[in-house]
């Protein structure tokens, strides 16, 4: 009958994982702006003519990730 311990442990662990995910998402500011991302995702990657795309940094993630975190 001790399977109940296993099940309880699993169910609580799963719940705690989701809870931790929630806390993490609040902490990292995901709920600060709940509108802009919904618009942003609808933008097309519009066409950029060949000549102008070459000398422009088109990579938004140029800034090292580690740098962003400390901000």
């Amino acid at each position: 009958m001790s399977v109940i311990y296993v099940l309880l442990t699993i169910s609580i662990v799963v719940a705690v994982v989701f809870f931790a995910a929630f806390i993490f998402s609040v902490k990292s500011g995901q709920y600060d702006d709940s509108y802009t991302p919904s618009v942003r995702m609808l933008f097309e990657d519009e066409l950029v003519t060949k000549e102008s795309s070459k000398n422009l940094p088109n990579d938004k993630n140029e800034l090292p990730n580690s740098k962003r975190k400390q901000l």
Partner: protein
Amino acid sequence: MDNTYCYHCGDPCDDQIIHFKDKPFCCYGCKTVFEIFDEHDLGYYYELQAAAGSTPNIAKGKYDYLETPSIAEKLLEFNDGTYQIINLFIPAIHCSSCIWILENLHKIAPGILQSQVDFPKKTVRINFESSKISLKEVVLLLTRIGYEPNISLENYDRKEKKQNKTLIYQLGIAGFAFGNIMFLSFPEYFEVNEFWLDQYKPLFRWLMFAFSLPVVFYAGRDYLISAFKGLRSRHLNIDVPIALGILTLFIRSTLEILFDWGSGFFDSLSGLIFFLLLGKYFQQRTYAFLSFERDYKSYFPIAVTRLLEQNKEETIQVYEIRKGDRILIRHEELIPVDGLLQKGPVEIDYSFVTGEATPVKKEVGEKVFAGGKQLLGAMEMLALKNVSQSYLTQLWSQAVFNKDNVSSFQTLTDSIGKRFTLVVLLIAFSATFFWIFNDPTKVWNVFTAVLIIACPCAIALSAPFTLGNMLRIFGRKKFYLKDSGVIEQLATIDTAIFDKTGTLSTRSHDTIVYEGSALSKEEKSLLKSTLRASNHPLSRSLYKLLKDQDIMTLDDYQEYVGKGLYSSKGDQKLKLGSASFVDNCSSDASDQTVVHLSTNTQYRGHFVFQNQYRPGISELFTKLKKNMELALLSGDHEGEKHRLEALLPSLIPMYFNQKPDDKLFFVKELQDQGKKVMMVGDGLNDAGALAQSNVGIAISEDINVFSPACDGILDASKFKYLSQYIGASKQAIKIIKLSFVLSLLYNVIGLYFAVTGQLEPVIAAILMPLSSISIVAFTTLATNLLGRKIK
């Protein structure tokens, strides 16, 4: 011609049309923005939303101070020498095109690495490489494409404002524990003395106990603390019965599982706290892009230009201005300190300070006061004081601005809470008393059950959900309130005071009356052509008002700064301007804003500029008059008194030439007589009165720009509906009272079970959420119905 709209900003092109790439533009500014976007293949901007742009407006030298490292350092959020990050507030952000273009800035300027828009807050965070592009260049780029950031003294003094997320964490904990405890307590609801259940009962119960610990001591601690504080100050607020309920629930449940009396009420306990927090959260939502706490700092520039010996210029921070400094104020810049005018003449727009709509002329040697806006070119002045001692800024040293505004106002919920607590304790004790004599074994059970079931969860939820929803409804109608408490205050108002300029009237002079001899067609045409060349605000509004005439080329045109215009065509000569400037002027209308006109040395007449009153104000005043006392306080002169008297219902007292602190004391005096005062104003001159009043409402034509510290911001176009909003607030209070009745009904049902000693955990677990949910449903429905009626 009337039907052409600018491709960039969507404004009608009345003055001129510029064609570029087959598209019409209203001005060169808009055309330039289009050119910039077009050049970088950002034409998608116009596809997202037609006419999305706003007209750029660049004042030269305005942002020179951003080159001063000490000032830039204060504004930057992050700076490691190579990379810099700045967060700028851009009021012009209003649609998806704005988001798109601002997040594609890196395509226009290579030095910009990344930019991210926060739409609700109207800010953009720009990440740039300082070796390739400077902060000033970033700001200028934004200004050039019509997204001028708003940088004021407020940004300079910025303290790190950490958003308080405690409530969200508390809500998360309570919700998490509530769900899990529900699962764990479910088997015992249907207990049938099964072997398996009996075996594991203790495990389930202690797990529930463990889950409830963070709920009571973290999520619910605010209620315990508030109740404790209330009791200590001998004040029974609504949190007292709530805390009593929470503690009784927790202690009884713990004892029950400790001595194996039963399964406890952990499910009801966590559900109660979860619902309460939900109500709190619902009530707390605010408008991220509006600020209700502004003082003069949001209007003042960060830096000014100080003139050194040999006319060398130097940018200094405004706090560094010392007595005796010579300061250069450019066109359209704000005067930051009181001082003496040294080079002019100037015209200063004091409308934010005094409410006076007409610009004031000042000659060299005259005193100028802080807060005015320079309208005619550049001026030089000698500082007489430093910033915090100026006439205007001293208003903020008044006590109203320092005291914490959590006033003694007792909310409806709290006043109910007081009586409620007394009644509950009375019932609990009399029931206990009854059972002592009849069946002493039930005493403990009954006493705690009464406290548990009487916990006023539904009552505590009525106000947050009603007011929170009203707040949202008002927000949709463009009436933005600071918090839900303002609605309760609004319902109690019995006196309303209005400012004139900017509140009852629009800021611009839109009604122009000509008094004098009629003009011939040639003269009209000459007049229009003369006005066309001038950039003076009065000329612009007069130009727009005159009917279309043939535009001709002038033989001679001269603008005398601060005096008027002179032009000639053939043998026709025309002078337009102040009384002393035009020829043979005999009229004297000093109370009003007037432009005189003379042709060929003969006086012809004058144009009177009148304030345009907002539509619907007489109806509004008539409606308000029925329920409250009204008064008008104006910083302006009496010139408009007769027009106002004709417009407004009689017997409304009007006071003119009121200084900012006069207004404040006026409100205070009324309050001392026991009146609940609402102040409706717009400018800095009303700031004192707005802060002092019970409800201060700022009228704003563009909610993103200027509004002094207040309790609510009302969009100017909705001004005429103000009486409806007050009515709706009163209705909202009625809804709260009705839901109190409803929740009392639930309490009576619960009390029946409690007093008779039959309260089972399952009944509590059903009754508690049921009452809460039905209250939420009732208030939301009722307020939505109410919201449909108001415009």
